[in-house]
């Protein structure tokens, strides 16, 4: 059975991701220990909170390069995905630079911020979306977004079009919370684990 490690650096949704995997019969390991993470078959990088303090936490635990150099399937969720980008407007934070993309703040006024609730994803690419149809609903809660790009494998709009998911080499990221997105979210986690 493959070894799944959830990087436990203090993000709020670690438990929810763990429970979601357990509902699929997988027992993940929670760890912030570099050798433990490096020995995983699959790595999940959750995120809920604020970008600069989360980057600082990764730095304190010596995990920046561990993540940048990961070779196994790697999935960043929400703030996890945003931290895999180049830089974020959230407190001008330098990211991990895996995706050479900016993270921007939704312009308030036209829409309410945070973008909170169920929204559709479309233009789905890669087998991580196997079994899903276009325009399926996922649960989002975020104030910052990654624009549409060549690494985008799912799009959403609010009403600005943005990246609902990203992919490059072994790295995947999703802006929505698959662990909170009902059976279709669960399907995405399953597809990732079975890669």
């Amino acid at each position, binding site marked *: 059975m493959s070894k799944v490690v959830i990087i436990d650096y203090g993000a709020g949704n670690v*438990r929810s991701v763990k429970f979601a995997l357990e509902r699929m019969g997988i027992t993940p390991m929670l760890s912030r220990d570099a050798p433990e993470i490096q020995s995983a078959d699959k790595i999940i990088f959750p995120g809920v909170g604020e970008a600069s303090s989360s980057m600082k936490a990764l730095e304190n635990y010596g995990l920046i390069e561990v993540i940048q150099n990961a070779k196994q399937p790697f999935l960043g969720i929400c703030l996890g995905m945003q931290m895999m980008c180049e830089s974020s407007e959230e407190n001008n934070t330098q990211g991990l630079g895996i995706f050479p993309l900016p993270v921007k703040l939704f312009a308030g006024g036209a829409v309410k911020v945070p973008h*909170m609730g169920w929204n559709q994803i479309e233009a789905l690419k890669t087998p991580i979306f196997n079994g899903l149809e276009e325009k399926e609903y996922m649960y989002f809660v975020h104030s910052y977004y990654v624009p549409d790009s060549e690494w985008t494998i799912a799009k959403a709009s609010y009403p600005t079009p943005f990246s609902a998911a990203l992919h490059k080499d072994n790295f995947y990221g999703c802006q929505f919370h698959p662990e*909170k997105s009902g059976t279709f979210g669960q399907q995405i986690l399953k597809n990732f684990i079975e890669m």
Partner: protein
Amino acid sequence: MLTKRIVPCLDIKDGRTVKGVNFVNLRDAGDPVELAAIYSEQGADELVFLDITATGDGRKTTAELVEKVAEKVNIPFTVGGGIKSVEDVYTLLHRGADKISINSWAVKEPKVLDELAAQFGSQCVVLAVDAKQIDGNWKVHLVGGKVPTEIDLFDWVREAESRGAGEILFTSMDHDGSKAGFANEALAKMSDMVNIPIIASGGAGSIQDFADTFVHGKADAALAASVFHFKEIEIPTLKQELKSQGIAMRI
């Protein structure tokens, strides 16, 4: 397109669901975990658990309950009622709640909204506010709407947003239990005033009441308890009907 949200609310006391709940297919009508799972399967977009337990022991039970819900349910849920310390918030979020809602505590110490937003992020901080009209002015009430304050509802909501609340759960005590519709005029005014999502609460009696609060009340989400618990309105029917009226719904 971002959908409007349908949010069943479960009142919890000592880890059990209170208020009569008549689900015939429920093995244990008082088990909040089982009820939560059923609502989730029926298409509820989110759940709210309101803890009405008074004792310390009961609150510990609530924290354990939160973990059981998080284990079982794969949609977001909020926990509120009686939260009065950062430690309470940490415990509930750590156990698996997605958001917490605070009410009296924030009225007494508004700066906790800033602290919670900085520590946990605005996305998980819901300000619950109960209000009713006194001489035509909406005033914030405490203790489940029993104790009036001098605080103006709209001033308070605006302040809460600026301090870092990520969402407002507004219950109109004038409408709660009436089954005659939500406080749409006040809701629409609030929605125009702040730039964070608003959950309408109090007054749900018919499918049209939900449609009205989304269209005329400009609410982002609508919360109800008894109409769902007593199966007066079934969630799949409700969502289909709202969708057929052109309201964005996750079906």
